[in-house]
């Protein structure tokens, strides 16, 4: 993975030469403005880390059993986090619009004026109305539907994809298959639940995710953190300490949890929020270089 690059060398995203219309990208998604959401969004990563630390011994002793046992709890935690703290798919625009005039306009100048491609294009207006209104049944339904969708997609799509990625990054293929799949399931719950909940099946967003080109926000930051953490988690495995926790998925999973928490916390600092990693020099930069 790109190592330190995503965090250390972020270019300022706004460049006037790039017309936003060319990139109909979904804007960064922040935590919902309500008090409960803000508080819980800080509690949640800490809670996950505590869970990870509390179950560590059991994880070392019987990895497969423990991973399996923790899976529903992790799913529950992730779902309650996204429902409590994040805007569901299609309502992104509403949130952005609703919190207009606040600091976000400065922090995220990239948010385009054109409408975001949403899950069901007809609904944002309807949702916005619902959202500004009281929390009634349909409001809950609007949140539970994406939550259900995200759980389904996470388990059906993200888990196998992550399992394949794990193997490609060096996980054993001929042995430890249950461990790999369960590790992928945990990582999928950590990274994909919020992404699916917030973005639905917006093709362009997922292309950006695949190309690591999303603007930084807590959702994307925690997902990237999960992957990076897992990558760095492989470091202690070759050491000759002969500790049982050096066995294959444990360090990687712990790294993923830590990466998730760090990514989720760091990405909402004003320094990073909304910024994009600029990998390909833009046309203007390139011509500048040539003239130099």
């Amino acid at each position: 993975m790109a190592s330190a690059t995503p965090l250390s060398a972020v270019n300022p995203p706004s460049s006037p030469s790039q017309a936003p219309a060319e990139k109909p990208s979904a804007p960064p998604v922040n935590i919902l403005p309500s008090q409960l959401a803000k508080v819980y969004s800080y509690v949640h990563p800490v809670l996950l880390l505590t869970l990870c630390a509390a179950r560590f011994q059991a994880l070392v002793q019987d990895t497969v059993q423990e991973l399996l046992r923790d899976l529903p709890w992790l799913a529950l935690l992730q779902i309650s986090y996204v429902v409590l703290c994040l805007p569901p798919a299609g309502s992104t625009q509403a949130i952005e619009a609703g919190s207009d005039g606040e600091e976000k306009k400065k922090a995220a100048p990239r948010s385009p004026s054109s409408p975001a491609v949403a899950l069901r294009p007809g609904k944002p207006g309807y949702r916005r109305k619902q959202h500004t209104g009281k929390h009634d049944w349909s409001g809950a339904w609007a949140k539970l539907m994406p939550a259900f969708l995200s759980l389904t997609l996470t388990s059906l799509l993200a888990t196998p994809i992550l399992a394949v990625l794990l193997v490609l990054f060096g996980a054993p293929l001929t042995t430890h298959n249950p461990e790999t799949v369960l590790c992928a399931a945990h990582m999928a719950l950590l990274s994909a639940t919020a992404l699916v909940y917030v973005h639905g099946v917006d093709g362009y967003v997922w292309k950006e995710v695949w190309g690591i080109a999303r603007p930084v926000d807590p959702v994307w930051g925690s997902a990237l953190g999960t992957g990076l953490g897992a990558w760095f988690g492989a470091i202690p495995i070759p050491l000759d300490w002969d500790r049982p926790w050096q066995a294959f998925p444990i360090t990687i999973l712990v790294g993923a949890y830590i990466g998730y928490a760090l990514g989720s916390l760091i990405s909402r600092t004003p320094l990073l929020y909304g910024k994009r990693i600029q990998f390909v020099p833009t046309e203007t930069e390139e011509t500048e270089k040539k003239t130099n």
Partner: protein
Amino acid sequence: MVILQCGWATLFANLLLPVGILIFSSGFFPYKPLLPGLATFNEIDRNATSPVFDKVIFMVVDALRSDFVYSNESGFLFTQSLIREGAALPFTAHASSPTVTMPRLKAMTTGSVPSFLDVILNIAESDTSSTLAYQDTWLAQLKARGDQLVMYGDDTWLKLFPGMFDRADGTTSFFVSDFIEVDRNVTRHVPHELARSDWSAMIMHYLGLDHIGHKSGPKSPFMASKHQEMDAVVNEIYTAMQQKSHLQSTLFVLCGDHGMNDAGNHGGSSAGETSPALLFISPKLQALGAQLQSPIEQLDDLQYYQTVEQADITPTLAGLLGMPIPLNSLGVFIPEFLDMWDSGAQKLHILGRNAQQLLNTIKATFPNSAFDDDTIASSCASGADSGIEGAQCAWAQVQQLRSSNISADEAFSMIGPALMRFSRVAQDVMSSTASNYDVSRLCLGLMVTAIAVLLVSRTVFHECTRSAHTGVFLVFMIIGYGSMMFASSYVEEEQQFWYWIWSGWMFYLHIRFEASRLSSRSTAGSPPARYAALATLGLAISQRFLRRWNQTGQKFAAEPDIARKFFPGHPAVFWGLVILTYVDAGRHLFKSLPSVALLRLSALVLTALAFMFKVNFAAADSPELLIDSFISRAVGTWPDSFSLVWQARLVFGGLACYVLLAFFIQKRSGNARTPSTLFHEALNLFLMMQSRATNIPLFLVFRVQAMILSAMSLEGIQVTVTTLILQYMTFFAFGGSNAISSVDLSSAYNGIGSYSVILVGVLTFVSNWAGPIWWASMSNLLRPQRDSGVHSPAALSTFHIAASLVSVMAACTALRTHLFIWTVFSPKYLYTIAWATANHVAVNMLGGIGLSYLPARK
């Protein structure tokens, strides 16, 4: 001109690298003061003890691990019966690292602990500076007495002791697959030598068991019959000793020079490698009444019976044969044999002589330490029981006891233990201080190399700032690699780092690639973009294969992999892949040649010849790959007209013609790429010649990777980083590691009839660094043509190699008292020298210059 492009700084840096290496090495590799000449008896010594034996039969079975003889899975049934009768005294002889044959033979004959430098000399076998012709050994002592010596077996003995033997027949271990002939060549001499009485030492060195180990490990199905074969030799000799009068007082020593690990290799310091068996056999030994139990249950630590040092063989033999102990011996007389003498005075004299000789070597090594009565108080007061103070104290106690009035009867029981204690402490002191580092030289070497780093750092800084992310990644990689050198397990498992960093780099390439696709989506949907999405996926899958091809390192070395587990079980798949690789190589060579029918035909013929050579070589070197395969049936029908040497020479000659052709056609052809492509294809075939058969399909994987990489149209600096990582990664994928035991010598003699240091050295390097060389040449093809003026790959790779040299040197300096310094860090240093001089300076730099001549001028 790659180097001149990037300026004199890089050139100077590359000149400084060998200088730094030389200075550091001169301070790092210990120089031990050797006492010259032969030990002699004075008048008292000569008459004090009577020799117990007058002849010795010294039978070395290469890699005879202790459990091969002692455990209940052993085939040495007769030998075990001798242990039960008490006619054989069994020991486990600790062989210190490096556990390769030549240093071990030195230890067993001189009684000293050989320096680490002997490992290199073990590989450069014929080096004459490593002979023991001028050193004091028990063989030299026998020779000085006017006795005759005979030798059969491994010709290492002949190289170590030129002119020592009156009759000898050396065998070379050319093909490790030869389990039978090497040993038959030794055994056939045994009967008539046993019939003669003119020798007083017969040395035999059997190689077959080691070959089986290298080939298929200690649990090989061939092991049992080899045990029985060796046991039969023991039986034959023991029977002769009982029956023939001139062998009445003969001592028969059966020992291994080293053991083997679970993979069947040796060179390191695991329990398996350092625990060979050692048995002293004679009907006379029954007098000692040691009737030990045998066989014994399999032990995990392999320490059967009593563990002694391998160096202890020398003083024990000297004592039993009534000779002076060789001057530089660090051995301690094995006390079990003291009861071969009746009187306490004689026993005491044996121990006293041993202690006195050790004291002399200590005094030579520590000229500043006094061993007189004055030191009693100071050294013993500090309570030290080890180190030089411990030795001083122990000697002081001996002196004290000697000066006190003890009756002759009690003398042995009082002074004997004190002498033993001193000898043991002295042995410890001398073995651990075998390394006298010259720290100032270490620091100087380190500084010179650091200057090389600084020289290129300016260019590298410019490069890095120009392409920010790649630069950050490069710096992260170099820092990560450098800090890794300080942890022994990361050094042992270096391949993990490269696989890991390569996965990160692939991910980075993927991001860059996706980002450019995302940004260019609106402007133009280029047709290759659709497949491009699969590009990094292809890279990832191919690297996953590389990773599993050969398991190396320490921790996971025994896990199943493709080359050693999968292929022997699936010969059809294996040979299919090999044929595919040769077809691919032939096709590319064909296409890269100018369209002259005769030339192009020659490419096909040459490829076919190369393939035939590989098959014939595999049939001789690793026949297990041919069992039950369609190739074996085809091979049977081939005429056996050519020797392997000539086949190899023919292919090498043809390839050399192509390289000459490449230089010739570049003057005429319009396409600048043609000559370097032709060169690369010729090199490709040459590297395949020099690779193990099981590694051949890797070249197909390389081809796929190169195709993907060229489709990604990388920038100059990305090509440099990519090939840098690939060079290291493929080195390990071919089965290399940072352990001396993993040096692959099987292709070192291709096309060579007789030994030649330079040729064998070059071929050995090429066969171990085949992957890095391939990618060095490929980087030239991958590099974009236009920005070659801006980017300087030479500076970047110089920076990397100099920085890694600095970190390895710093690790070796800082950890010079570390337990693993000789087993992990020094081998790593040797490997880094090879990386820096042979791979970097010779292949990357000089090769780069050579290649730049090919396409540049039109």
